[in-house]
């Protein structure tokens, strides 16, 4: 199989997942329009980069902007790893933010509840 097709095959599921997740967060009101736009543009740029690796590489060589050899299978594995890391980072950050908020809400509520109960006693 062509290595560029392998790149697309390995990475596009992450991009589609990223776009889908961004839309679902926006649809349920968890994301503002600005954050939705920034995330969507980010994933679209990644998608364009993955779908058009060959023409982009040829363009860069033609313009003398790179003299590196064409991507090999190891490069493709590395790119896949980076895209996977970005996907995981987005997920983790969202979960961390939500956990932090829940924890601080819980602390706040507990502190108020216990202090007012002590006052009533």
């Amino acid at each position, binding site marked *: 199989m062509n290595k560029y097709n392998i790149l697309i095959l390995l990475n596009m599921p992450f991009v589609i997942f990223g776009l889908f997740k961004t839309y679902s967060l926006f649809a349920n009101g968890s994301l503002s329009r600005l954050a939705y736009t920034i995330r969507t543009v980010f994933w679209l740029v990644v998608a364009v980069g993955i779908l058009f690796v060959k023409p982009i590489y040829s363009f860069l060589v033609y313009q003398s902007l790179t003299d590196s050899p064409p991507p090999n299978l190891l490069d493709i594995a590395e790119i896949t790893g980076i895209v996977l890391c970005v996907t995981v980072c987005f997920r983790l950050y969202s979960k961390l933010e939500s956990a932090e908020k829940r924890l601080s809400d819980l602390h706040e509520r507990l502190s*108020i509840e216990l202090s007012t109960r002590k006052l009533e006693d």
Partner: protein
Amino acid sequence: MSSQSVSIGIVIPAYNEGPVIGEVLSKIPRTIAGHSVKIVVINDGSKDNTAAEVAKHKDVLLINHLLNSGVGAATRTGLTYAENIGFDLVATYDGDGQHHPKDLVKVVEAALDNKADIVIGSRLADLEGMPWYKTIGNFGLSTITYIIFGSFVLDSQSGLKAFNKSALHSVRFKSNDYSFCSEIIWRAKQQKLSITEIPIRAIYTGYSTSKANRQLKINGFNLIGQMLKRRLIGLINE
């Protein structure tokens, strides 16, 4: 607003303020413009006798944070409590004795007169007595707040602020540390709330100066980092 009876809450976040909190509480007026004032102290997990000192004042409500969470978290707890109680107007006030009770009255009266949804007591509008490095530092932080959040007030880090009911209900901030002051201004802008500033004069006692210097050494750059982090998270995650 001032013709009817208005319930006013004063929220004081306190962390290890044992040496001065008693005096601060004694000086706060219990009525402003004929309206009764209720004081709420949030003891943010102090290791000293702050809670015991506050408990001596029977008319003061004491909320004890189970864990030390930062001045932003303590202020948020106070504002949430004030909202639950149903105060019509809430002011935040520093527990280290750097504010003059007369300035509290000025700020609350401006809020009672509906001058804006949020009234900030600005230490930079009256520079007399303020050390030059504090003037530069505070103005610098206000400028950085403007660059990061796009909303300018002269003294973004002032602890003396008054919120009317709609501001209290709609301003939701997430910062637990000192960057909450800047975040409040940003959230107010997002909610299209009006902000005005009233000149106040900070009192620099040996206690408040040494505490502020200690915090500045620890928090100076952290504060800017926290503001940037909050803004970037806001861009991709909110």
